[in-house]
C-alpha cells in the first residue's frame, strides 16, 4: 500500500476508534439537537432566539443561550449522518439536555453509536486535509494526522474546526487556479464565522483581475444563499443569534483577555470587550496595506488569522485547528503552537468531562465522576485554575505575535510597512527601547570592525 494511503487510513482509524466514547456534551448536544430540528423542518435560529429572550427576561441581563450560532449550511454536513443513525436506532431521544450548565441524560447503547455517526463529517474533513497535505509533503500530513491536539478536538471533543481547516486549505490551494472553487470553499470555511477577517484580503488581491474577482464572489455568494433565506424568513432571530451574539460576546479564551473571567460584572465585561475591536481593526488594516497586493498568499492568510487570534475578543481552544494545515505549509511558522491551546483544554474543562459517555454507562463510574468533580469544583472556586489559564493565555498570545512577526519580516511589503510603523511611532512620540539598543549595538559593531 502506498504510504500516502496508509497515513490517511491510520488517521481515520485512530479517530473512529475514539469517536464513540468521548464528547463535549454542550457542543455535540447542540449538533444533535439541531440535526433533529432541521430534519423536522424547524427553524434553528427561532429556537435559539426564543431561549435567549427567555434567559434575558428571567435574569434581566444581556446573556445569550449558547445553541446553534453558526452558518446555516453547517447543519447540512451533520444532518445526513444523523438521519442514517436514526434509521438504525429510531427517533427516540438519546441525549437529553446537555446545555451548559446542565449535564445530559444519555441513553444506552445508542449514545456511542450516535457519537460515531455525528463525528464522521469531522473525520472526513480531517482526512481531506491529510490527503491534501500528503500530496505535497507526507511528513506534514503525518504531523497533522497524528497531532494529539487535532485528534482531541475532532475525535474526543467532537468540534468541527477541521471542516473549517479543510475548506480554508482548499481556498488557498485553488485561489490562483480556480477562483470560483476558491470562492465556494471560502464561503464554506465561514461555517465558523471567524474566517470572515480574510474577506478583505481575498477581494483586494483580486482587484484588477476582474473576471477572477467576479468568479470568486459568485462562488462565495452561492454559499450565502441560505443566509439570505434566513434573513428573509426570520430576520430578527437570525441577526440576534449570528451577529448580535457572535459580535458582542464577552472576550476570553486562550488569549490575554481571559482575565475578564474573574470580573463578575457582565455589563462591564461587555464594555471592555468592545474596546478590543479597535486594535483588531487597526491590525487588519495594517496587514491589508502590507499584504494587499504583494507577498505570498499563504503568509497573507496566516498573518490575518494570527492577527485575529491575537486581537480578536474570543479565541476558543479549538480555533487553531483551522489554520494548522496552513501553518504546516508555512516555513516561518512554528506549528508547535498547538501545545498551548491543548494544555488550556485541561485547565478549563476536566478531562473526565469529555469521558461522560463512558462514565454515564454505569452508576459506579458516575459516582467516580461526582467525586472527581467535587475536587475540581473546589479548585475552580478557589481560583487555582485561573492562574495557569491566564498564564497560558498570555504565553499563547506572545507566541502568536512571534509567529506574526516572523511572517512580516520574511515578506516584502506592498507599501513600506516598516516605515509606516516607524512614522506612526515617531508621531506618537515613543520609540521602543529594544530598537535603541539594536541601533547602538550596530554602531558598536561597525566601530569594532
Amino acid at each position, binding site marked *: 500500500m502506498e504510504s500516502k494511503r496508509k497515513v490517511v487510513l491510520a488517521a481515520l482509524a485512530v479517530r473512529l476508534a475514539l469517536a464513540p466514547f468521548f464528547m463535549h456534551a454542550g457542543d455535540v448536544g447542540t449538533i444533535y439537537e439541531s440535526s433533529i430540528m432541521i430534519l423536522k423542518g424547524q427553524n434553528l435560529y427561532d429556537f435559539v432566539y426564543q431561549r435567549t429572550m427567555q*434567559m434575558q427576561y428571567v*435574569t*434581566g441581563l444581556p446573556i445569550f443561550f449558547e445553541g446553534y450560532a453558526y452558518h446555516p449550511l453547517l447543519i447540512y454536513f451533520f444532518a445526513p449522518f444523523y438521519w442514517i443513525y436514526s434509521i438504525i436506532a429510531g427517533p427516540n431521544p438519546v441525549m437529553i439536555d446537555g446545555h451548559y450548565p446542565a449535564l445530559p441524560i444519555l441513553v444506552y447503547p445508542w449514545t456511542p453509536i450516535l457519537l460515531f455517526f455525528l463525528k464522521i463529517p469531522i473525520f472526513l474533513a480531517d482526512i481531506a486535509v491529510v490527503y491534501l497535505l500528503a500530496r505535497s509533503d507526507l511528513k506534514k500530513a503525518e504531523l497533522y494526522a497524528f497531532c494529539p491536539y487535532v485528534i482531541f478536538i475532532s475525535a474526543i471533543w467532537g468540534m468541527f474546526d477541521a471542516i473549517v481547516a479543510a475548506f480554508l486549505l482548499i481556498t488557498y490551494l485553488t485561489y490562483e487556479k480556480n477562483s470560483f472553487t476558491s470562492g465556494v470553499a471560502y464561503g464554506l470555511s465561514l461555517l465558523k464565522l471567524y474566517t470572515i477577517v480574510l474577506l478583505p484580503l481575498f477581494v483586494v488581491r483580486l482587484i484588477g483581475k476582474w473576471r477572477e474577482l467576479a468568479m470568486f464572489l459568485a462562488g462565495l455568494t452561492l454559499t450565502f444563499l441560505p443566509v439570505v433565506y434566513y434573513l428573509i424568513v426570520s430576520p430578527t432571530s437570525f441577526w440576534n443569534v449570528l451577529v448580535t451574539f457572535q459580535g458582542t460576546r464577552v472576550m476570553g479564551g486562550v488569549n490575554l483577555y481571559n*482575565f475578564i473571567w474573574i470580573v*463578575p460584572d457582565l455589563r462591564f465585561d461587555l464594555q471592555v470587550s468592545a474596546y478590543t475591536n479597535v486594535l483588531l481593526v487597526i491590525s487588519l488594516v495594517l496587514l491589508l496595506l502590507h499584504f494587499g497586493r504583494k507577498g505570498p498568499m499563504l503568509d497573507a492568510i496566516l498573518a490575518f488569522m494570527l492577527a485575529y487570534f491575537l486581537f480578536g475578543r474570543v479565541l476558543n481552544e479549538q480555533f487553531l485547528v483551522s489554520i494548522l494545515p496552513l501553518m504546516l505549509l508555512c516555513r516561518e511558522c512554528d506549528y508547535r503552537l498547538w501545545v498551548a491551546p491543548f494544555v488550556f483544554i485541561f485547565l478549563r474543562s476536566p478531562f473526565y468531562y469529555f469521558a461522560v459517555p463512558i462514565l454515564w454507562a454505569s452508576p459506579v463510574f458516575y459516582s467516580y465522576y461526582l467525586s472527581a468533580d467535587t475536587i475540581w469544583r473546589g479548585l475552580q*472556586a478557589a*481560583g487555582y485554575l485561573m492562574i495557569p489559564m491566564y498564564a497560558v493565555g498570555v504565553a499563547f498570545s506572545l507566541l502568536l505575535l512571534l509567529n506574526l512577526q516572523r511572517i512580516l519580516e520574511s515578506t516584502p511589503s506592498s507599501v513600506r510597512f516598516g516605515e509606516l510603523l516607524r512614522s506612526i511611532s515617531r508621531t506618537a512620540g515613543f520609540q521602543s527601547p529594544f530598537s535603541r539598543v539594536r541601533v547602538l549595538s550596530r554602531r558598536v559593531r561597525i566601530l569594532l570592525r
Partner: protein
Amino acid sequence: MFFVIYIVGLSFVPLIHQTLLSKNAWLGYGTGAYALQSQRYFILFNDPYDGSSKPNIHINPYFAPNARISLLEFSDWTSWVNGFNLFNDFNVTMRGNQEILDVTYMRPGITLHKFIQVSPDGNGVIVKLVANKELTAHLELWKWVMSSVNGISASKVSKPIVIPTGTVINYTFWYRALNAVGNGSILLSRNPTQIEVWPFEDGFNKITVDFINSEMSLTVSGSMSTATTPPFIWDYSDLPYVLPVVAILVIAVYLLVAWHGKQKKSRSRSSRS
C-alpha cells in the same frame, strides 16, 4: 514594547474593577447570577438553574478582609410557599438595581418578591419577602455548621428540635482555617409560627422558619473574632492582585527565552564565519 504594555496594562483591569467599581452594587454575571460586595459582606444570588444560594450571605472578617466565609445560605431547593417549592414550582425573574436585588416568584394566584439589600448602616443584610396575599411559608436557612443556636448546643441534641419562637435567632460557629469564632444573628420582623434547628455531625446545619403572613423580613448579620494571629488564607478575591504578577512573569520568561535564542543564533553565525 507596545504589546508588553498592553498585556500588563490589561492585567490590572480586574483589580481596578474590584477596588473602584464593584462596591455596594448588585452586578450580574455568568449564566444569570448576581453578586454584591459591601464593606463587610459578600452576597451571592445564584443563577436561575441552581436552587442553592438564594442568597448566600458571606462575611469578610475585619482581620482577613479577603476571606469570604458563608454566614447563612437561603435555599430555594428546600423552601416552600403554600406547599409549592420555590425552585421547582415558580417562574422567577431577577432584576438588580444599584442596591436592591428584586427576585419575583410567580405562579397562578401567588406573586412573591424577595428583596435583598445591605442595611443602610452596612451592618447586616436584609432579605425581605413581600407577597400579594397571606401565605404559609417554610424557609430553610443553612450554615455548615453552627456550634450553637440560641444557646442550645448540638452536643445535647440528636434529633431536630423546635426552639422557642421569637424575633431573634443567634448562633455561633467555628472557622477552622482562620482559627476564628463567628457569631451570626437573624432578626425577624415578626414572630414566626415555628423555628426548628437540625443537628448535623458536631453542630447544627439548618434552621427552618415557618410563618403565616404576607410579609417577613430577615436581617442577617455577623461578626468574627480570633484570639491568635490568623494565618494567611487564599481566596478567589485575591486573583486580581495575582494576575498582573503572572502577566509580568510570563512576559519576562518570554523575553528571556527570546534574548537567549538570539544570542545562540548570533554565536552560531559568528562561529560559522
